[in-house]
């Protein structure tokens, strides 16, 4: 039987040189080539991108929302992990 549901793809766009690709949304497409074109047509209409990645949504392994207590709450109490206790010299500039 033919699968009539067009697969979903997640779209990542790099806006400028030196930046990382960022997730911007998703598109439907039958295969990777068309997914890339659809991503271009849907998400780069206003000059947003220099590079586009697409990946099948089903290929993404995601954390389970019901486990967010175990996964993320332990980090909440470790304030010392934030680099806020250092004086950054002015000469360092953007960090």
């Amino acid at each position, binding site marked *: 039987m033919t699968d009539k549901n067009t697969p979903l793809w997640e779209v990542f766009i790099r806006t400028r040189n030196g930046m990382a690709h960022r997730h911007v949304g998703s598109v439907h497409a039958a295969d990777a080539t068309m997914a890339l*074109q659809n991503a271009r047509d849907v998400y780069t209409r206003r000059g947003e991108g220099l590079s586009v990645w697409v990946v099948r949504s089903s290929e993404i392994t995601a954390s389970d929302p019901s486990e967010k207590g175990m996964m993320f709450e332990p980090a909440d109490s470790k304030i010392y992990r934030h680099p806020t206790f250092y004086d950054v010299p002015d000469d360092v500039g953007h960090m």
Partner: protein
Amino acid sequence: MAETPLFALTLRLADNALILGHRLSEWCGHAPMLEEDLALANMGLDLVGQARSFYDYATKLEGKGRDEDALAYRRDAIDFRNVLLVEQPNGDFAATIVRQLLYAAFAEPYFAALSRAKDEMLAAIAAKAVKEMAYHVRHTAEWTIRLGDGTEESHQRAQSALDDLWPFTGELFETDDAERGLIADGVTVDPAPLRAVWNRTLDPIIAEATLARPADGWMQSGGRAGRHSEHLGHLLADLQFLQRAYPGATW
């Protein structure tokens, strides 16, 4: 109306782009999926942008005070000089895709050559348009391959589209005496030799799509001289309605 050859040429390029751009705009809100709705609108906007540049240049060449709106909205069908291919109805999705492929596979090498021609304004517009047309080729080629090599129904629809539209492709490579004068002077480019490039683009796509290339038989002609199919008048009724009902209306 006494027209200079350069004005006539620029008007043809403008009309091709406007009419095909309008055809694609008719898909807005009707495409099979949202992604393709945007893709067709994007290609339509590429073409309307090209049309505006060519019309703007045409008004300067003419120098009679007509603006681009006058050329786009206040000429009758007989004054339009687009090739018959671009005014053919959208039909089904396959017909729209194949029509776009047949045109873009010509327009890309044509604009590439025109961008190196002597007329600086045409060359500049062509240099911008060639990248747009390259994407139109890419996108419609991928769809043609998937439709042709897809289901039994999509194959049959793509083949019908190719068969129905093929007789309109001969006109893409036509020239007249006035245009040949410009070609001889290097002001513009001769479309005839581009047929080989067009074939080299299309043949592998048609083959991969498992479609049969139609024979080069009798070709339709006349749009470039203002002799149009019955479809153009209906298209213009839609395109020109606002300026006809409310002349000079602005946003």
